[in-house]
C-alpha cells in the first residue's frame, strides 16, 4: 500500500504541523491578533512564525493585514472561514483515525 492510499493520506499536512496547528487553534478562539501576540502565545520565533503564517496565508487559511500605526508597522492576523473549516475537518479526521487505533 502506498502512503497515498492509507487512511492518513487525507489529513491536511498544512494543519497537521504542530506550530501551524497551534497558530490556527489560537486564532480560532479569537477574532484577530497581531504578530507579537501570536509570538507570545505560540512561543515561536519571529522567523518561524512569519514562515508558518506565510504558508497559512498562501492556503487562504488566514488573512494578514499590514498597516502602519503611528509610523510603526503592525500586522493583524485573522483566521478565514476556509481556515476554520480546515481545522474542523482536521479535528474530525484525527478523531476518526485515533478511534480506530487498537488499544
Amino acid at each position, binding site marked *: 500500500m502506498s502512503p497515498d492510499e492509507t487512511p492518513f493520506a487525507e489529513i491536511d499536512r498544512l494543519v497537521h504541523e504542530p506550530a501551524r496547528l497551534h497558530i490556527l487553534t489560537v486564532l480560532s478562539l479569537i477574532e484577530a491578533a497581531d504578530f507579537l501576540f*501570536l509570538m507570545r*502565545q505560540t512561543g515561536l520565533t519571529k522567523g518561524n512564525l512569519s514562515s508558518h503564517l506565510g504558508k497559512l496565508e498562501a492556503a487562504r487559511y488566514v488573512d494578514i493585514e499590514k498597516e502602519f500605526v503611528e509610523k510603526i508597522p*503592525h500586522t493583524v492576523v485573522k483566521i478565514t472561514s476556509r481556515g476554520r473549516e480546515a481545522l474542523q475537518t482536521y479535528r474530525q479526521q484525527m478523531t476518526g483515525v485515533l478511534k480506530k487505533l487498537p488499544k
Partner: protein
Amino acid sequence: MDANLDSKTLARNLWQDRTRDGLLEMLLGVYFLLTGIFIQTNVTSLFTVILAFFPVIANKVQERFVYPRIGYMRFSHQDRNPGRRIVAALLAAGLAVALVTIFARSSEWAETFYKWVPLIPALLLAAGFLFAAQKTGFARHYVMAAFSLVAGFAVPFVDLPGRMDNVALYLFVVGPVFLVWGAALFIRFMRTHPIRAEETQ
C-alpha cells in the same frame, strides 16, 4: 513551545493575558472614586462626560502601555457577548434603581431601600468578577468578588444621615482598594513585560 494544545487551556491563557495588567481593576477604582465624589457633590453632568470618555481612555492606555508589551488581540463576537449582557444588566439595574428611587421618594420604606442600595453594585461586581474568575482561573478575581460582596453587606450597617451616603461610602471603600490593587498589578506588569513591539517589525 507550550506542549499543551487543548483549547480550554489556550482560551484560559488568552483571558489571563488580557487581564494580567490590572488595568480593569485600576480603572474601576478610578471610576468608583469619581462616582462617589460626584454623588457627594451632586455634579452629575461632569460624571456623564467622564463616563462617556472612559472606554476611550481605557483604549488609549492599552495602546500606549499594554499592546507594545504583550501584543494586540480581539475576542470573537461569541466571547464579547457576555460583556454586552453585563452592560445590559448594568443598564437594567440602573433603570430599576431609578424607578424605585422615583416611587420610593415619599414612602416609609425609602430609608431602608437607600440603606441597602450598596448591595446592587456589590452583586453586579461580584457577578462580574466571578465571570472573570471562571474565564481566567485567577484567584484574585474570587477575592475581589468576595470583597465586593462583603463590603456591600457591611456598609448598610453604618448609620449615615444622607440617602445616598451609603452608596458613596461603598464606592469610597471599594474604589481605593481596586485602584491600589490594580496599580500594583499594572506596575508589576510593566516591569515583567518589557516593550517587545520593535522585535516584531
